[in-house]
């Protein structure tokens, strides 16, 4: 049987590029060269996507299903990679470690993410997840400062533990159903009343594994430490690509399943969503470190996403996808500001670093304000439309408890976003805080993200139509 290679061309490009960059680094170390190779790879892989869009859906072996959904998420991931790479260059320049391997790791992690969003089989699921995670261990600890190593180790231990849960869950399902491919699992799934204990345990194990990656409460313990410890661009990468890819997979896995029909499963997800929202937002109130604050806020945002995930009907996939797009833009933007403000030694992540920012760097402060307002769901920004869409999906499925929790949490969330904005605008600059150097490419990325943020907030129709046209699966 011949395997169609065209649909998986982006994967091939990413893998080949990782090897090429690795060989280049072995022969000739040059930050700029590595950087440009990585950028070129990203752009090429992205440009391939529209070319192969005519050939989808294509089942490539039983492992990968390249459909419109996979292509869309691949594009999103590649754009994130582009943004992260662009803002990493100045950030890494002059740091202690030589920066070349950083890009290789980024490429490999992206490869794993793209596999995740296209996987239709437990094997490829696990493969993608591990490729992603193992690259992240190294990326988090990349600069080898104590805080980073602590974060990296914490992630390593917990991620390994969660992977074993996941693996165990998969094994149990295989033992029960005799298959590891998603479509077959969906078709062989026992009806709601006939779920036995083994199957229930398996599902819970898988939820634990995925919940860890998505940093849903109660599997969120690593999040603030890793967010704080990792270099700012890597944090942005974890917050967007890693979580987004896993969420895309989660949605695909449960796409054929009406969650309502499985009462206990539905209840588990509802509880996770509610406590994620509350825990994330309430703990964020007490943070004085911007990265930790964004970590807790991301926990809450993943909880918001679950509201749409738990809904049923036509809005479900498009609401999740649109919110993820918006979430990517605002998270990349917020961490982009942190990156651009960071000096050579430490990341600008303490709230004191932002005192009176509007006087020192007005444009940067305005951008950060826009990103935070978007996270809070204010109009004219992507977050407004995104949150509206989530609530619409929830109301459409009459998930009143979840929707009201979401609304209450929006108000709580507003409180700490406003606090950061107030600090930037109101407080005077503390003496002794250094004003860091300018980052050219980082600022360009921020400008692009700002435009995207406002565009999605003012005229989301084209993107929405694109998202609504996405076809999930072979049909």
């Amino acid at each position, binding site marked *: 049987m011949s395997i169609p290679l065209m649909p998986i061309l982006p994967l091939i490009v990413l893998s080949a590029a990782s090897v090429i960059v690795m060989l280049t680094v072995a022969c000739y170390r040059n930050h700029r060269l590595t950087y440009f190779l990585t950028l070129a790879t990203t752009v090429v892989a992205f440009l391939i996507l529209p070319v192969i869009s005519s050939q989808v859906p294509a089942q490539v072996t039983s492992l990968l299903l390249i459909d419109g959904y996979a292509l869309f998420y691949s594009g999103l991931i590649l754009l994130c990679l582009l943004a992260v790479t662009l803002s990493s260059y100045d950030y890494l320049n002059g740091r202690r470690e030589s920066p070349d391997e950083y890009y290789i790791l980024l490429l490999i992690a992206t490869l794993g993410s793209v596999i995740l969003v296209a996987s239709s089989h437990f094997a490829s699921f696990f493969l993608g997840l591990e490729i992603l995670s193992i690259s992240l261990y190294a990326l988090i600890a990349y600069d080898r400062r104590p805080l980073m190593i602590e974060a990296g180790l914490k992630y390593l231990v917990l991620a390994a533990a969660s992977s074993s849960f996941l693996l165990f869950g998969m094994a149990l399902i295989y033992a029960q159903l005799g298959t590891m491919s998603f479509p077959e699992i969906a078709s062989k799934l026992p009806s709601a009343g006939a779920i036995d204990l083994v199957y229930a345990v398996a599902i819970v194990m898988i939820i634990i594994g995925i919940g860890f990656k998505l940093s849903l409460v109660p599997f969120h313990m690593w999040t603030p430490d890793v967010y704080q410890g990792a270099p700012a661009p890597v944090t942005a990468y974890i917050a967007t690509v890693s979580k987004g890819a896993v969420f895309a997979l989660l949605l695909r896995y449960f796409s054929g399943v009406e969650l309502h029909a499985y009462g206990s499963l539905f209840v588990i997800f509802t509880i996770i969503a509610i406590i994620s929202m509350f825990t994330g937002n309430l703990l964020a109130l007490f943070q004085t470190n911007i990265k930790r604050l964004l970590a807790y806020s991301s926990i809450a945002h993943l909880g918001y996403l679950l509201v749409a995930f738990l809904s049923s009907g036509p809005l479900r996939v498009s609401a999740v996808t649109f919110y993820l797009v918006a979430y990517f833009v605002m998270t990349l933007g917020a961490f982009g500001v942190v990156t651009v403000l960071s000096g050579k030694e430490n990341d600008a992540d303490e709230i004191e670093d932002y005192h009176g920012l509007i006087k020192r760097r007005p444009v940067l402060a305005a951008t950060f304000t826009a990103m935070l307002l978007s996270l809070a769901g204010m109009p004219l920004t992507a977050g407004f439309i995104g949150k509206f869409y989530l609530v*619409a999906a929830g109301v*459409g499925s009459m998930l009143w408890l979840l929707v*009201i929790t979401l609304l209450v949490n*929006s*108000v709580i969330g507003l409180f700490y976003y*406003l606090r950061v904005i*107030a600090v930037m605008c*109101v407080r005077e600059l503390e003496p002794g805080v250094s004003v860091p150097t300018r980052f050219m490419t980082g600022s360009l990325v921020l400008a692009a993200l700002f435009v995207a943020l406002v565009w999605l907030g003012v005229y989301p129709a084209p993107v*929405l139509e694109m998202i609504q046209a996405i076809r999930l699966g072979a049909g």
Partner: protein
Amino acid sequence: MILALLILIPSVAGALAWFFGRMGNRWPRWISLIAFGIDLLLVLLLWANYPGEVDFTANRAWFVEVQAPWITSLGIGFHLAIDGISLLLVMLSCFLGIMATIASWTEIQERVGLFHFNLTWTVAGIIGVFLALDLFLFYFFWELMLVPMYFLIALWGHENRTYASVKFFLFTQAGGLLMLLGILAIYFIHGSQTGTYTFDYSELLGTRMNPNTALLLMLAFLAAFLVKLPALPFHTWLPDAHTEAPTGGSVILAGLLLKTGAYGILRFAVPLFPGAALQIAPWAMVAGVVGIVYGAVLAFAQTDLKRLVAYTSVSHMGFVLLGIFAWKELALLGVIIQILCHGVGTGALFMLVGSLQERVHTRDTQRMGGLWGIAPRMGGAMLFFALASLGLPGMGNFVGEFLILFGTYSVSALLTAVAAGGLIVSTIYALWMIQRVFYGPKKEGWKISDLSLREMAAMTAMILGILWLGLYPRPFIDTARHSLDQIQNVVESMRAP
């Protein structure tokens, strides 16, 4: 097109003001003044062409209307329209925009560009609220006006500004989100009944639902509107926000932001849920009357001049709530007049208090006294607006309150009597305020300059406005009457089974 321009002009001016702010403090002030001036001219132009007594035909219910696709896949359209009520409110917005700019002329000295950016965007959002006829668009503008208003308080406010601004934002945001819930619920109910999912106001009118659902949804809408209005017990953000805001911000808050609540009830809450509105009317009227008395009594007890004026707003907005839920033609006309007068009158009072504070650097009435001798023009203007506030005949408030009481009497004589009693308390606080600030012995030997030419010009315009509303309210009443009839007809037709 002209409607989109009304919103666009202030927003563009705001961006320009921010940009030119670096070239000097005069630029943003003039830019925002000119922008509001052009807007006001446009509205006056619209008003001059308003058909007046001409009957609306069914297919042309709106005077001017704009409709463009926006997010079609979700049934969201860019739908703006203006009728008599919107026209008057937009006119008030532009007028108070000018006044707020003038009030900030000397008070704001820091980050002037950014200030005017926020000021113009707040007003642009408010105008949007008055024009939007797509429920999504309405919610969009509703939220949009909050952000710049928050910044106005948080950045340029007085001592306790952070607390006040956050409280303001959280209260209004919580209300707004409940309204979002209501909007989405009615969207889905209408969609499942007819198959067309749309946020368009005229389509959603007349959606049938069971009474309990209607009541719940109505309460969700009211949550947003009653917080804004504010009605008891959702008013606690108001004294703080009004007191801490800079003068221009207070003018916009009291003059316009509160009116969006009244407008929302009139345009959306009652017509969308006519049955539920009938059910809740007695309670809402009681809340209105309690607000009238409570606001007036608390105003009397204040020593902070700005807080005093803020509480008078609670009292006056009680009349508005009472009038709307009485749902009689006279009462509704009174509501419109009351809204206009309160906008102008309270705006003027805040400007006077602001200029007083700029000169004596305190708002504490116990440290004032005997100021008439050194600032007679200021005293005269203050006396005028205090008299307007207590409802002296000849001034607009008298017409408004009289019509509201007249209309309410046929619904409930008891409530009317209590509300009229509130007028007595308002006489006490208004005169007491003048007495403590301008008469009596001089306390601290203040030496202050009287109102400048710029301030006098603003005061004159506002005094003329109040007198016009008081002596010849006919043009305003004619403008509003047919639109009110329209709304009443819609509601009556739906209440009839």
